[in-house]
């Protein structure tokens, strides 16, 4: 059923009893041409583009829990393409362009709101670095604006930009096309659109082993039995190492915990996304009025998908520096998600040593914004057994050949970006 004003009106007259489930829950077939493991935004988008753009008919997405229950439903939904390095800049800006038409494309309102992303600078060095990044972005055809102290003050009046703070606000780099979206809607929208094209969405189906024969993938073992497959792609954020181990290889990835928090809802007080430059902290306001905040990793390996106090304390200290009124607000919820942290801070979308087995992972702090482009290039990579121009640089052997994409310039540590 196509969602429209008319369908809304018609269903209103029948007391909203006529809505159909947005996707089916079939029993697994014995064999699929392509199986995607992981029913987050990336896996579902991949299945959608495989069916839509590459004419693949027989596709399943297997998800161990419920779709969107991983990082897709746990993230703070920042969307931006303010990258310095070409490979990242081109990929993420293509993603941003796909966001701009996603609701129409999927016939599903993902509530993409281009309210801008503003990165604050607090030192001269930071100012120089941001202006340089802004210039690099513009060379790549991406919008970027440097705001001085006064312009920042006008844009975010409740920010403490007085002389008093320890880290004075010198200015900020603004990407106006950046913003936020409704995370669940992205998973649901892609699931519904993929299902309409015949993709099977198999929830509560965990991949526990990868079956291979003479160097080629044959299918996956699951808690619902063996399912054969011509090709298998994994998009399992946080668990990419685990699936790679099942397939017989090791990755330059560690799993770490990232947390987020929301406050009680308040009236509109901030109409953009602001990131703090003197600590890892950022904030935006949801349509319900809650302040949505995020901070740092824990910095020790973790698969424990839950929050803890030290990071919360650090983040709220940063919040107080920026927005002192926050001390009066109560926190409502606090949670965590497991991130694949790569050794250069950039993703891996790649063929692998196992034939017909592909990985899409290593999203570090920032894979939500990548969702549409990730699905788009991953579908291409699987359909052609060859990366797309946009993800050629994200191959898994780049580390071996010294072609890392180290946006932060920090060397081989698994905690960049």
């Amino acid at each position, binding site marked *: 059923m196509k969602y429209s004003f008319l369908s809304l009106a018609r269903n209103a007259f029948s007391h909203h009893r006529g809505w159909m489930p947005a996707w089916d829950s079939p029993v697994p077939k014995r064999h699929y041409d392509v199986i995607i493991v992981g029913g987050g935004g990336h896996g579902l988008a991949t299945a959608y583009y495989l069916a839509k753009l590459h004419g693949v008919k027989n596709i399943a997405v297997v998800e161990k829990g419920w779709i969107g229950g991983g990082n897709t439903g746990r993230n703070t939904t920042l969307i931006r393409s303010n990258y310095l390095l070409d490979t990242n800049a081109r990929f993420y800006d293509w993603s941003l362009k796909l966001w701009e038409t996603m609701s129409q494309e999927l016939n599903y309102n993902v509530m993409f709101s281009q309210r801008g992303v503003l990165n604050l600078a607090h030192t001269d060095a930071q100012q120089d670095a941001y202006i340089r990044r802004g210039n690099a972005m513009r060379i790549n055809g991406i919008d970027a604006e440097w705001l001085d102290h006064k312009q920042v003050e006008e844009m975010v009046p409740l920010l403490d930009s007085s002389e008093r703070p320890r880290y004075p606000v010198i200015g900020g780099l603004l990407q106006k096309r950046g913003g936020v979206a409704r995370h669940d809607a992205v998973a649901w929208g892609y699931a519904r659109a993929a299902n309409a094209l015949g993709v099977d969405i198999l929830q509560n189906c965990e991949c526990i082993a990868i079956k291979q024969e003479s160097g080629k993938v044959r299918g996956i073992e699951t808690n619902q039995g063996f399912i054969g497959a011509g090709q298998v792609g994994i998009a399992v954020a946080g*668990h990419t*190492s*685990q699936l790679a181990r099942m397939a017989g290889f*090791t*990755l*330059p*990835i*560690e*799993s770490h915990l990232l947390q987020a928090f929301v406050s009680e809802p308040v009236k509109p007080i901030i109409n953009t996304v602001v990131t703090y430059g003197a600590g890892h902290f950022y904030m935006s306001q949801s349509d319900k009025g809650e302040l949505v905040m995020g901070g740092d990793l824990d*910095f*020790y*390996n*973790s*698969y*424990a998908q839950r929050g*803890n*106090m*030290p990071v919360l304390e650090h983040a709220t200290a940063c919040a107080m520096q920026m927005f002192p009124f926050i001390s009066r607000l109560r926190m409502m919820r606090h949670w965590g998600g497991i991130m694949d942290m790569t*050794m250069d801070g950039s993703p891996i979308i790649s063929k692998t040593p196992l034939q017909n087995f592909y990985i899409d992972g290593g999203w570090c702090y920032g894979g939500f914004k990548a969702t549409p482009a990730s699905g788009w290039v991953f579908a291409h990579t699987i359909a052609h057994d060859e990366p797309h121009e946009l993800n050629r640089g994200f191959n898994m052997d780049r*580390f*071996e050949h010294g072609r890392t994409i180290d946006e932060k310039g920090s060397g*081989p540590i*698994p905690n960049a970006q």
Partner: protein
Amino acid sequence: MLLINCPFCGPRNHTEFDYGSDASVLRPADDAPESEWFAYVYLRSNPKGAHTEYWQHALGCRSWIKVKRDTLTHDIAGVSLANALAQREQQ
């Protein structure tokens, strides 16, 4: 909060410590083949479960220690001195 039992200072909150890295990764010989150096610098087994790792008691006695921790449950199975162990392993 993790409670790490420093061999010198006793049980302390993990916020007093800095995380080092995966302690199962051993530095290859200087003339080891490139593939070994690649594995040393980049590859991590990243287990979901038992993990040995270095921590430094940065806000305490500043010694480096080796902790056996479960990455899923955060249970700590043991703490020892990094130095003594590192030496024994090299022999």
